[in-house]
């Protein structure tokens, strides 16, 4: 019995960590949608770039933290450049144009990464102080790095909340989301605000990517599958709502991770082992989509819909 409880606790921690990672991605997506009314499929490309930048800068500087900081700055700059060159032309167009234009950006970035870094993935080794595990119960060890991820993501979420709710720029962002013409008419440089928001969104995605790089390797197209999960998160949370994204991200992270761990066991109670092991992997990857479908049936606008959208 004790083993099961430990496994459950471990899986919940993993789920929380995955959920917070999803939140970092979903926050940028939902901010950009809420404020610029833009669907950005290329958001996953910034996730990939963050991982590649970190895997390049960390060995160069000889420090994991310094490399990560440089990678964050680099994704911020790339994000703002992309907004200035390409995204800006898509504001006010219909969603189909957003989808197609940013789909083009994904192709471009994937190929660019292949050109610059080559087709093989890149590893980002952890420094010794992050590569160990600590004892969370007697004889139960959990990796320090995963705890660090949870801590960093929680701090970022808190900072984001404070920035949006308690600062002048945050006030402008919220004002821009509800009535952009009025904000522009009051003499605010709304274009600059958009560039900034897009850049910050990109940097958050880059942070998620570089966090994930030591666990998985940095790979071409790594941002795409997780982006679709992030889309599920913002659909469940209500598009445009950061609070919704936070709650839905943790929910989805827990359901996915814990489901994958325990669904096979659950199936074995009800059917033959052969049938269970054939069905469980296919069905456990369906879980979050089923969750999304249920939310849609009950509340088509998501759990925390944003007024006026």
């Amino acid at each position, binding site marked *: 019995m004790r083993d099961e409880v430990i496994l459950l606790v471990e899986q919940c921690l993993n789920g929380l960590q995955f959920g917070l990672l999803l939140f970092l991605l979903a926050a940028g997506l939902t901010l950009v*949608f809420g404020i610029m009314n833009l*669907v950005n499929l290329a958001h996953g490309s910034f996730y990939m770039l963050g991982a590649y930048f970190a895997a390049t800068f960390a060995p160069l500087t000889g420090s994991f933290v310094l490399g990560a900081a440089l990678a964050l700055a680099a994704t911020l700059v790339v994000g703002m450049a992309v907004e200035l060159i*390409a995204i800006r*032309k*898509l504001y006010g*167009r219909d*969603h*189909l*144009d957003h*989808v*197609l*234009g940013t*789909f*083009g*950006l*994904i*192709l*471009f*970035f*994937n*190929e*660019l990464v*292949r*050109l610059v870094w080559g087709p093989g993935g890149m590893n980002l080794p952890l420094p010794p102080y992050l590569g160990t595990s600590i004892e969370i119960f007697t004889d139960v060890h959990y990796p320090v790095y995963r705890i660090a991820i949870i801590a960093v993501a929680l701090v970022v979420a808190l900072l984001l909340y404070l920035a949006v709710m308690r600062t002048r720029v945050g006030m402008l962002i919220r004002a821009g989301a509800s009535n952009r013409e009025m904000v522009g008419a009051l003499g605010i440089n709304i274009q600059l605000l958009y560039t900034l928001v897009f850049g910050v969104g990109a940097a958050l995605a880059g942070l998620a990517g570089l966090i994930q790089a030591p666990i998985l390797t940095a790979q071409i197209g790594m941002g*795409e*599958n997780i982006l*679709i999960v992030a*889309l*599920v998160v*913002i*659909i469940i949370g209500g*598009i445009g709502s950061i609070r919704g994204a936070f709650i839905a991200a943790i929910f989805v992270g827990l359901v996915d991770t814990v489901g994958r761990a325990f669904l096979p066991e659950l199936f074995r109670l009800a059917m033959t082992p052969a049938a269970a092991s*054939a069905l469980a*992997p*296919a*069905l456990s*990857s*369906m879980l979050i*989509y089923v969750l*999304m*479908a249920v939310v*849609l*049936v009950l509340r*088509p*606008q998501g759990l925390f819909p944003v007024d006026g959208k």
Partner: protein
Amino acid sequence: MTVLFTARNIAIGALLAFLALLPVYAAATGQFFPLTLFTRIVILALAATSLNLILGYGGMVSFGHAAYLGVGGYVVGILAKEGVTSGFAQWPAALAVSGIFALAVGALCLRTRGVYFIMITLAFAQMIYYVAVGLDRYGGDDGLTIYRRSQFAGVIDLSGKVQFYYLCLALLLAAIWLVWRLVNSRFGMVIQGARSNDRRMRAIGFPTFRYRLAGFVVAGMMCGLAGALLANHTDFISPASMHWTRSGDLIVMIVLGGMGSLFGPLIGAVTLLMLEEGLSRVTEYWQIIVGPLLLFIVVHAHGGIDGILASLRRG
């Protein structure tokens, strides 16, 4: 009065003549590569045509249409593996299963609008992709080789390259004809009306949800047929055939060729795949050109190639 010899009609006529005569060229020169390439193009054009019914005419931006390619293909592949090789059983099953899947997905997705619809169709397609990855018995991630193409005893032999190509072409033309009939019927008018103003259509008494759902299912079944063809063409089916980028490609074909135009998807499919084929010979990194090109087309060239052709004067 309609003019027969517009630039647009001449271009479409030339394209159709080219498609019809291609096997003759292949037989005369003994070069079958172009025929194989164009079989693929025709099949994907069929998939794009089905998507155009809901996207171009119905305004439903489904970003998960490749799922039906996969569903149709997997039905053929799974039945073939289980020993059912008769096409008379496989193909109706492929149509039925993709129809049922479209009904379930459509019933959920059509409750929403706009950007929700795009994301949810994408998410459900991703779900079925992962289900295919999880099917260990049928190859999982590696896919499933189909050792015997669908058997239509005495009617047609699908392993003949020319016969198979003409079958695909005939099905494509039949699909375009069907879309033409549907779009100009009362049913099609309701769907197009719902695209322009759904609330008004409902106010004058049309249960638009049912009409749109029916359109969604028809499109899904047509694409399922394309999936059955594609599985037979490549003798192989894998989750990659319904990767979400494939759904993106289908939308690109439609927008490139011309949304809501009968022959637009065909023109777009030919253009996109020839462009890929041509660029991949110039550079290994061809997508670095296609990506920005796509962005450029979105920003500057609305209406696609068909729109440009239609705007040309007679000549």
